[in-house]
C-alpha cells in the first residue's frame, strides 16, 4: 500500500501557511507572496506540503518563471526563416546551411557574482555552456559582458578581479575560447555588478536535442557531479530578491554575506567531462531528451522536461547520487549543485549510456521514469517499471508538471513612468543644433587622449589576456574589437559575434538604450561583412514590483522588439534578471544584446584596423545632435537640456546592408563602427591597431564636440583602396546613405583631423584665440594612454 504524504487541505479551503520557528510563514521565507500561495492552492485544489511548497518556491521565482516579464517577452519577434530553435528552448538556434546551425544565448549571473565574484562568475560560464550542450551543440565561444561600479572603489576592484578570474578559470579549463565582451564602469552598478555571459555553439542539426520527455516508459538518467547542499535557494532567495548593502542595511534584502551559501560552486573539470560525455551521447543517438540542471536544480529540469513533452515524470529520490549526508528531500530537489544533466533514455540504450559515463568517470544513475499522467511525482522507497511507487514506497510530492513550469503564475505588473525622465526627441521633431557644452578652451587632442586613457574606452587587454581566446584553433579575430570572427573548419564559413549594451543612454531612456544596443551590436557584426542572423537579449533591471522599474522593463522590451523588427532580426532566446538594486537604488536599466552573424567565407572578413598607406578614409552615415549618455558627457559634463542622439532604424538597416554588400564586393580594406567616444575614438582605435596614422579633414556642421565625440548611431568609418571609391560611392547612393571622404591613411605616426566648415570656424571663434581648430596627436602618446588606462584605473599598474 502506498501512502501519500500530502497534507490535503481540500479544494477551496483557505490555506494555512506553515509557520517557521521564527514566526515567518514558510512560503514567504521561500520567496512566495501570500497571493502566490493562494494561486498555488487554487491550481492544486489543496494546500501544498512542505516539499511541494519548496518546489513551487524555486519554480515560481522570478528567475525561473519570468513571472513579471513573460507577458512582455511574448511581444518580441521570434520567428522567421532560418530559426531552428526559438525562445523556450535551452538556447536559440539559427540555420547555417549544410545541416549546421549556430546555437547561442546570453545569461546573467549577477547576484551570485555580487556575493562571491569568483564562483559566481565561474558558474555563470558553466551554466550557459550547459545550456548550449543541452541543445546537442558543442560550445565554440564565450563572450562576457561585465558592469561594475567606479573602479577606484576597493570593493569594486575586488569584484572585478574575482569575476575576471572566475570567467577565465572556467572557460580556460573547459577549452572554450573567450573571444569578446565588454567591461563598463558606472556608479549604479557599485553594489550590483552585472555578469552577463553569452555562449555560442555549433550544432549538427541531426543532433538537435529538446529538453523534453516525450515517450512513456523512458528512463530519466541523472549524470555528472553528485548532488550536494550548495546553491540551495539560488534561484529564489538570491536571484529573485534585492541585495542588501555589505552589512544588510535597512531597506535592503538580507546581507551579502548571509547569502553566500546560496552561491553554487563550480568545478570546470567536471564541466569539461560533462560536456564531452553529453556530446558523445548525443552524437551516438543514445538520448531521447536532454536538459541541464541549473537554477532550481532537479525540480526545474524534471518539471520542464515533463511539461514540454506533455508527459509526467516520477523521480525516485533515493536514487539521486549525493555528496552530502542526511540531505532532506527539499534539499535534494532544489540543490543547484553544478555540472549535472538529466537525460531521457530509452531503456534498451541504458547500458550504452552508462558505459560512456563510466569511461569518462562520471557518475550516472537512473532516477526516474516517464509516465503518462503529466504529474511530477517525487517518491522515496523505489519505483516499479511503470514509474509507479513500489509497495511500501511513499509519494513525497505529486504536482502537475505544468503548474510548476508553463502554467506558473504570471504578473502584469503595475507601471508608471518616472516623472523626471528625459527622452530623445520624437522622429521629425525640430532639433536644436548646439551642444551647450563648456567648450571654451577645449583642446580636442587632450579630450581624445583623456577618453582613450579612461577606464571606459581604454584597452581591455588586462582582462582579455586572462582569457584563452585561441583554443580550438578557429579564432580569426579575437577580443578587443567590436566583434569576434570564428572560422568553421567544416565549411570555411565565418561566425561573427558581438555583445553590447548602451546603459548610459538606458539610464536616461530605457527604450532608446535597448534599441541602440540592438543597433550597435548588429552593426558590430555587419562591419565585418557578416549578415546578422539573430539576437539574444539579457534584460537587467531593478525590482519589478516598483512601478518605475516595471515601466523600465516594458520600455526595454519595446526597444528590443522595435529594433529587432526594424533590422529583421529574430529574438531567439534570452534572459531576464530583475531585483538588481541595493537599498532601493536600482541599476541603470541595462539591456544586453548578443548578435551572431554569418560570413560565407571567413577569409573575406573585414578587419577593423587600417591596412595600407594611401587608402581613403571615409565616414558612412551622418551625425545627429545630442551628447547625453556619451563618454564625452561623462568626461566633460552634459548640458542639462541635452538629450541622447536619436536612432533611425531604417537608416541603420540601410547602413548594415551597405556594409555587407560592400564587403561582399571586396570594396573595404577596413570597417569600424562609431560608438563609444564617437568618430575620433573610432579613428584612433583603427589607427592604434594598425600602427598607421591618418590625415583627415572633418566638415563640422554643428559643434566640434558633437562631430568628434558624439555617439550618434548608424555610422561606420571605412578605409578603401582609392580605386574602389567610385563603386562605394555608387553603393552608398543606392542605399541612400551619406558618404563623406575624410582623407587618407598615412605613415606619419600621427592622428591629424582638421576641422573645416562653418561650424568649426564659429566654434573656434567662440573658444577664443589660440585654441587649435584641429586634432593633432602623436599615435604613440594615444597608444600609451589607451594601453595603460585599465591597469591604472584598477590600481594594477606595475
Amino acid at each position, binding site marked *: 500500500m502506498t501512502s501519500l504524504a500530502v497534507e490535503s487541505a481540500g479544494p477551496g479551503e483557505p490555506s494555512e501557511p506553515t509557520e517557521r520557528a521564527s514566526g515567518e510563514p514558510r512560503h514567504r521565507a521561500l520567496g512566495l507572496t501570500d497571493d502566490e500561495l493562494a494561486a498555488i492552492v487554487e491550481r492544486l485544489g489543496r494546500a501544498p506540503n512542505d516539499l511541494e511548497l519548496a518546489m513551487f518556491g524555486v519554480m515560481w521565482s522570478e528567475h525561473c518563471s519570468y513571472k513579471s516579464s513573460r507577458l512582455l517577452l511574448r511581444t518580441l519577434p521570434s520567428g522567421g526563416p532560418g530559426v531552428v530553435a526559438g525562445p523556450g528552448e535551452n538556447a536559440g538556434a539559427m540555420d547555417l546551411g549544410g545541416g549546421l546551425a549556430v546555437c547561442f544565448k546570453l545569461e546573467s549571473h549577477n547576484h551570485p557574482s555580487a556575493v562571491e565574484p569568483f564562483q559566481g562568475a565561474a558558474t555563470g560560464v558553466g551554466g550557459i555552456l550547459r545550456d548550449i550542450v543541452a541543445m546537442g551543440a558543442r560550445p565554440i565561444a564565450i563572450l562576457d559582458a561585465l558592469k561594475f561600479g567606479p573602479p577606484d572603489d576597493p570593493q569594486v576592484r575586488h569584484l572585478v578581479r574575482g569575476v575576471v578570474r572566475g570567467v577565465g*578559470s572556467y572557460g580556460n*579549463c573547459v577549452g572554450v575560447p573567450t573571444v569578446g565582451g565588454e567591461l563598463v564602469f558606472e556608479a549604479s552598478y557599485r553594489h550590483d555588478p552585472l555578469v552577463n555571459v553569452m555562449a555560442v555553439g555549433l550544432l549538427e542539426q541531426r543532433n538537435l536535442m529538446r529538453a523534453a520527455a516525450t515517450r512513456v516508459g523512458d528512463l530519466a538518467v541523472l549524470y555528472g557531479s553528485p548532488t550536494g547542499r550548495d546553491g540551495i535557494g539560488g534561484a529564489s532567495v538570491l536571484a529573485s530578491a534585492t541585495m542588501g548593502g555589505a552589512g544588510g542595511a535597512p531597506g535592503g534584502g538580507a546581507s551579502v554575506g548571509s547569502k553566500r551559501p546560496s552561491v553554487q560552486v563550480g568545478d*570546470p*573539470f567536471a564541466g*569539461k567531462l560533462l560536456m564531452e560525455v553529453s556530446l558523445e551521447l548525443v552524437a551516438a543517438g543514445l538520448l531521447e531528451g536532454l536538459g541541464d540542471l541549473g537554477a532550481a536544480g532537479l525540480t526545474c529540469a524534471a518539471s520542464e522536461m515533463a511539461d514540454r513533452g506533455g508527459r509526467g515524470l516520477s523521480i525516485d529520490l533515493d536514487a539521486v547520487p549525493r555528496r552530502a549526508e542526511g540531505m532532506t528531500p527539499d534539499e535534494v530537489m532544489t540543490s543547484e549543485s553544478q555540472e549535472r544533466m538529466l537525460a531521457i533514455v530509452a531503456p534498451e540504450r541504458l547500458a550504452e549510456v552508462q558505459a560512456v559515463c563510466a569511461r569518462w568517470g562520471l557518475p550516472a544513475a537512473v532516477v526516474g521514469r516517464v509516465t503518462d499522467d503529466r504529474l511530477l511525482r517525487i517518491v522515496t522507497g523505489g519505483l516499479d517499471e511503470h514509474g509507479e511507487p513500489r509497495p511500501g514506497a511513499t509519494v513525497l510530492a505529486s504536482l502537475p508538471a505544468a503548474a510548476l513550469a508553463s502554467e506558473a503564475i504570471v504578473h502584469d505588473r503595475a507601471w508608471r513612468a518616472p516623472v523626471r525622465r528625459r527622452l530623445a526627441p520624437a522622429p521629425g521633431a525640430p532639433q536644436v543644433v548646439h551642444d551647450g557644452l563648456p567648450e571654451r578652451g577645449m583642446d580636442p587632442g587632450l579630450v581624445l587622449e583623456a577618453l582613450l586613457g579612461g577606464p571606459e574606452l581604454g584597452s581591455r587587454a588586462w582582462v582579455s589576456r586572462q582569457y584563452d581566446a585561441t583554443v580550438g584553433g578557429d579564432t580569426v579575430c579575437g577580443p578587443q574589437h567590436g566583434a569576434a570572427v570564428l572560422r568553421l573548419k567544416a565549411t570555411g564559413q565565418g561566425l561573427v559575434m558581438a555583445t553590447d549594451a548602451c546603459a548610459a543612454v538606458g539610464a536616461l531612456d530605457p527604450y532608446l538604450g535597448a534599441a541602440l544596443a540592438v543597433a550597435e551590436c548588429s552593426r558590430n557584426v555587419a562591419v565585418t561583412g557578416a549578415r546578422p542572423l539573430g539576437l539574444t537579449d539579457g534584460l537587467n533591471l531593478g525590482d519589478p514590483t516598483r512601478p518605475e522599474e516595471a515601466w523600465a522593463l516594458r520600455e526595454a522590451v519595446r526597444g528590443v522588439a522595435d529594433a529587432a523588427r526594424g533590422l529583421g532580426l529574430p529574438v531567439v532566446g534570452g534572459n531576464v534578471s530583475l531585483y538588481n538594486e541595493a537599498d532601493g537604488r536600482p541599476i541603470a536599466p541595462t539591456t544586453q544584446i548578443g548578435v551572431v552573424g554569418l560570413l560565407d567565407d571567413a577569409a573575406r572578413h573585414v578587419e577593423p584596423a587600417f591596412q595600407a598607406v594611401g587608402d581613403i578614409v571615409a565616414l558612412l552615415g551622418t551625425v545627429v545632435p545630442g551628447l547625453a549618455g556619451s563618454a564625452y558627457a561623462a568626461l566633460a559634463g552634459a548640458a542639462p537640456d541635452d538629450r541622447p542622439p536619436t536612432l533611425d532604424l531604417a537608416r541603420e538597416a540601410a547602413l548594415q546592408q551597405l556594409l555587407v554588400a560592400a564587403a561582399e564586393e571586396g570594396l573595404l580594406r577596413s570597417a569600424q563602427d562609431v560608438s563609444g567616444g564617437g568618430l575620433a575614438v573610432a579613428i584612433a582605435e583603427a589607427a592604434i591597431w594598425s600602427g598607421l596614422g591618418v590625415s583627415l579633414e572633418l566638415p563640422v556642421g554643428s559643434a566640434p564636440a558633437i562631430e568628434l565625440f558624439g555617439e550618434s548611431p548608424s555610422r561606420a568609418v571605412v578605409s578603401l583602396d582609392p580605386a574602389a571609391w567610385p563603386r562605394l560611392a555608387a553603393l552608398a547612393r543606392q542605399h541612400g546613405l551619406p558618404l563623406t571622404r575624410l582623407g587618407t591613411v598615412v605613415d606619419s605616426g600621427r592622428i591629424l583631423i582638421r576641422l573645416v566648415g562653418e561650424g568649426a570656424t564659429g566654434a573656434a571663434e567662440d573658444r577664443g584665440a589660440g585654441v587649435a581648430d584641429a586634432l593633432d596627436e602623436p599615435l604613440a602618446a594615444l597608444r600609451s594612454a589607451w594601453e595603460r588606462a585599465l591597469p591604472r584605473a584598477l590600481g594594477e599598474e606595475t
Partner: protein
Amino acid sequence: MKVGVIVFPGSNCDRDALHAARLAGAEAVALWHERPDLQGAELVILPGGFAHGDYLRAGALARFSPVMAAVREHAEQGGLVLGICNGFQVLTEARLLPGALLRNASLRFEHRWVRLAVTRHDTPFSAAIPAGTMLRLPVAHGEGCYVLPDPELDALEARGRVLFRYALPEGNPNGSLRDVAGVLSENGRVCGLMPHPERAVEPLLGSDDGLLLFRSLVAGAARMAA
C-alpha cells in the same frame, strides 16, 4: 608519419593538435589515456589542457595515467615525444624533461601572442624552421614559469637543450628563467614547450609559424623512412 595525440580527461587542445598534425601531412589518431598502447605512433603528442583538472598541481596526476608507461618506454627507445603547454607540464612531472613550471610571475593566467627564438635547426623539432626565423605563437597558461637550479640550467644551455626562448618585442610572458620557452631531453627526442604551435597553423588564424614545427617532424620521419 603516424602521430598519436593523447587524450587525458581535461585535455582541451587534443583536437587542435590532431588538426595541425594532419595539416602537416601526418596520419593522426587520438590515444585514450587509459590504454597503455600507442597504436604504432612514431610521434606522441601530449596536448594542452587541464589533465585531470590540474587541481593538485599542473600535470601531477596525468603522469599516473596508464598511457604514460607506454610514453616513457617510447621515449626510452628514442621515440619522438612533444609536450605542448599542459603536455610540457606532464612531461616535467614525469621526469621525462628537466625542470618545473610554476605559476606565472604575474600570478594570472596569460593569453597573448609571443615571439620565439629558435636556438638550433638540427633537431627533429626545428629542422624545417629557416635559420633566423622567429616563431609567432600564442601562449595560454597559468603555470608556465620555467625553473631549474642555475647549475643545471647552465648545463642544459651548454648542451643545446634550450630549444625555444621568448624574444622581443613581446618578451617573456611568465617569468621563466633565462626566457626559456621550450627544452629538449638528453637524447633530443623529447621536447616540451609552453606556447601553442598547433594554434598557429594557418595564416587566417594570425600565423602559420607553428606548422614549421610539425613539418620538421613529418619531414624528418619521411627522411628516416627513405
